[in-house]
């Protein structure tokens, strides 16, 4: 039993050295951020920052345990997939049609609860969206979507 624990410990120590941890930090202002393209009320921006931006932007606020493996791998994987699906900082680069599709997806994801990820909100209390929060976000999306359709 003691031997098994020692081996596990060695493995845990070894994996800390295996792969470098990538950092999602752009260190720059984001001219293509969604807020530069559409009016985003402060309250909405705060909700988006807390509930979404860690995985869906170019700047992640990493917790202390992100320096440890295997947490680092897991987090990196979430960020990579998140950014590929939606990146708020690059929203301005999306062609109009794609913007509308993304807005629709955001609304339906938070409505059916698939986003933010349960594993994320479990750890990050500030990321939890109340029913009222969701309504506010959805209303904002509706307005933005409507204004997009009119400008086609």
């Amino acid at each position: 039993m003691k031997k098994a624990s020692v081996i596990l410990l060695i493995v845990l120590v070894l994996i800390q050295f295996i792969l470098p941890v990538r950092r999602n930090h752009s260190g720059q202002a984001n001219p293509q951020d969604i807020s530069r393209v559409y009016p985003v009320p402060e309250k909405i921006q705060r909700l988006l920052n807390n509930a979404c931006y860690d995985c869906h932007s170019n700047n992640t606020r990493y917790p202390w345990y992100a320096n440890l493996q295997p947490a680092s791998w897991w987090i990196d994987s979430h960020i990579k997939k998140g950014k590929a699906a939606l990146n708020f900082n690059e929203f301005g680069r999306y062609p109009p049609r794609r913007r509308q599709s993304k807005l629709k997806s955001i609304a339906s994801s938070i409505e059916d609860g698939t986003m933010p990820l349960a594993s994320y909100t479990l750890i990050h209390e500030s990321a939890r969206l109340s029913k009222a929060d969701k309504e506010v976000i959805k209303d904002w999306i509706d307005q933005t979507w409507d204004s997009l359709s009119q400008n086609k």
Partner: protein
Amino acid sequence: MKNIILSLAASVLFFSACNSGTKSADRPSVEHTATPSTDTAASKAGQPGLTKIIDVYLQMKNALTRDNDKDAAAAGLNLARAISSIEATSLPPGQAKVFSDIADDVKEHAEHIGANAGNIKHQREHFETLSQDIYDLVKAGVSTSTKLYFDHCPMYNNNKGANWLSETKKISNPYLGQSMPDCGTVKEELNN
């Protein structure tokens, strides 16, 4: 001895399960541009490719009408593949611009539908926007193998309504499926 093997196996499993995707290349998340075609004779090849897109879309529509999420997902993957294989530069200029604009969106929705067998509700959400994209494609002049009908269902999505394209004049509703297959009206006939 058994404990050592067990804990070694557990460790390997543990960090191989978490080691997903760190070595794979980054997928671009910004605007997608079509790569130029080197084969100029492919200019005529664009049309059959586009017709295929409409056909696969109709297969997807029919699957949703039957409440068959698995077939819809299969059609989704086919559609994503089909649209990726078309070079915008092989199309006449008027269509090329519209096509580039629409293609990315179609591909994403098709992929999502492909990834959501088992969640027909989610597939139908994406199908709504996809239908609008395909409609725009047809209106831009893409020729179709058959006459198409642009249909409207007023009840879907809490009465917000949604549209779809059909090859039959008879209404077969992909949004409500077998629960209400006849719901809807023909809004427009498309003769391409």
